[in-house]
């Protein structure tokens, strides 16, 4: 509580302290406290509302019919309530298939990335070996290098994939891995997925704080290296691993860059959402058989519906996990 009054109304606190009389002092203090709470409530309410408002707007828009969108009287509550937007955007995005694919890929990728990053983070935190600092420098470099810089080369690398010329020797041709999911799994296994440097950094930071005595006690009691890692270290690291897993899952779920680069042909929710407006035009053309352009308002309405459908699973996940997620990150004590 000592830093409760740090932010708001510092002048009042100063004045309150100057008064010598106890009862007046107490009353003043109570009043300052009340004033601070009210100010804080207004401020936080405004900011929270600002963050949530777009979602609320999207929800209300997603239940409107097209005529409601043009009606100047209708702002937030739809006059003609409909769920048609949902069925339509589910069909356009091929939601079921995309959802299944995204679920499988995000889950497996997240598990793979987090387990590999845990190994590397543990190795960097608990062992001494030559060039370790250089290696950690490489991790930092990886956080800083945007994937776009290497994407041109990776694109060609997987277009003409080869392991030291071996495959060419046997079959006479390099393999084209573009369009398959394999390259991305390979990159994830090598810690080169989306924001993996950050996970390594966080996990390393966590393992560094575990006292050395714990490890030594395990060795004395006859645990091997692997056993120490699995039985002693991993259960302790559960909170930070959960956070990293959530990050990996969420970022993979909504990722557009890697997905369009490596998983282009697989139907995913993120890529089908980014194409939803074009697909809507194509869909209507196919249904009506004539060339029409979809109105901006309606395509945006479908876009909002699609966005809602995609973030819904994430929000549900977040509601279940947020407590552990936020608290564990807030308590891990990240330091440079």
């Amino acid at each position, binding site marked *: 509580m000592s830093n409760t009054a740090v932010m708001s109304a510092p002048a009042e606190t100063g004045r309150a302290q100057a008064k010598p009389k106890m009862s007046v002092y107490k009353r003043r203090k109570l009043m300052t406290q009340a004033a601070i709470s009210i100010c804080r409530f207004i401020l936080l309410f405004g900011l929270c509302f600002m963050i949530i408002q777009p979602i609320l707007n999207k929800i209300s828009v997603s239940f409107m019919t097209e005529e409601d969108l043009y009606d100047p009287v209708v702002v937030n509550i739809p006059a003609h309530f409909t769920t048609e937007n949902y069925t339509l955007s589910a069909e356009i995005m091929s939601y079921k298939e995309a959802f299944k694919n995204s679920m499988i890929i995000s889950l497996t990728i997240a598990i793979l990335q987090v387990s*590999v990053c845990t190994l590397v983070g543990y190795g960097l935190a608990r062992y001494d070996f030559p060039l370790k600092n250089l290696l950690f420098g490489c991790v930092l470099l990886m956080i800083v290098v945007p994937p776009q810089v290497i994407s*041109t080369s990776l694109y060609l690398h997987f277009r003409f994939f080869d392991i030291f010329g071996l495959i060419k020797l046997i079959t006479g041709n390099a393999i084209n891995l573009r369009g398959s999911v394999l390259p991305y799994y*390979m990159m994830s296994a*090598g810690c080169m997925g989306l924001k993996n440097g950050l996970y390594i950094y966080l996990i390393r930071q966590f393992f560094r704080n575990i006292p050395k005595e714990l490890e030594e006690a395990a060795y004395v009691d006859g645990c091997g290296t692997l056993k120490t890692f699995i039985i002693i270290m991993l259960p302790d690291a559960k909170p930070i691993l959960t956070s990293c897993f959530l990050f990996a899952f969420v970022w993979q779920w*909504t990722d557009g*860059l890697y997905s369009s680069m490596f998983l282009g042909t697989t139907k995913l929710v993120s890529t089908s959402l980014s194409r939803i407006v074009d697909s809507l035009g194509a869909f209507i053309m196919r249904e009506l058989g004539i060339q029409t352009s979809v109105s901006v308002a309606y395509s945006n309405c479908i876009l909002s519906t699609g966005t809602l459908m995609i973030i819904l699973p*994430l929000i549900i996940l977040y509601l279940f996990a947020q407590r552990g997620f936020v608290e564990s990150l807030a308590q891990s004590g990240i330091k440079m």
Partner: protein
Amino acid sequence: MKKNLNGKVSGLEKRRAWTGVLFCSPFIIGFILFMIKPMFQSFMMTFCEVQVGAGKFDLVFTGLTNLNKAFRVDPDFSRFLLEGFARMIVYSLAIMVFSFFVALVLNQEFHGRALVRAIFFLPVILSSGVILGLETNNSVIAMIQADISDSMQGVSITVVLEDILKTAGVGVRAYEQVFTLIDNIYDIALASGIQIIVMLSGLQTIPKSMYEAASIEGCTAWESLWKVTFPMVSSIFLVNWVYTIVDFSMRTDNDVMSKVSDIMVQNLNYGLASAMAWSYFVITIAFLALSSFIISRRVYYYE
């Protein structure tokens, strides 16, 4: 690493070193295969023309042609670069201030703190990947928001304040910048989810006894904010600054980056694309290194 009397590394130490290397081996292999090689290759491509043929691709050395094209022939690139950079600096500063402020408030104890925290970290989900790019050009949502603000007859505190300050004639350019930031506070709040968490974690490492000592010495709350809190989290500012800059340069709604992927995927001009990506990267890194050097000299480390 300890060495024994003969100057050799002892057996146990050696074995431990190898175990460490083994733990890190996925990263070492991945880094060489998917980072060093592509980085080197795309660096080469910057100075070459890439000709994609059947079953292979060739690099033809062309010198500085690609860089010349990027900066002097392409109509958009240098403009995007400059604008993106100015935006990045202003927004990153705003994000630092905002995350510090919000973390201070969220670190206090009040009813419903868990709910408020949950809402503030929602942007981690909302501002990721494709959603962010789609969010910015959704005109129906923009229309609704315009409707709502119209219904208040255009009276908002910021507009009134802006009018007052403008007629008073105080340093107009600087104030305009501040007001654009306030108008775009939604963007700032969306971009600062992680930064708030990191800042909160920093605030929680400050021992309570420090504040007690400060208040016994006669510090007011305001003074202890600047004399205790601020120095104690100054290292977190550095972490946040680096993260913000990096995050900003990788965002999907970044003009430079979308230009690069357009040129790569649509025009298939790999040489020009890597020239652009590399020049952007080098400039960002140079800026990052310079600014974090300046910040790190002022950081206070408490041991």
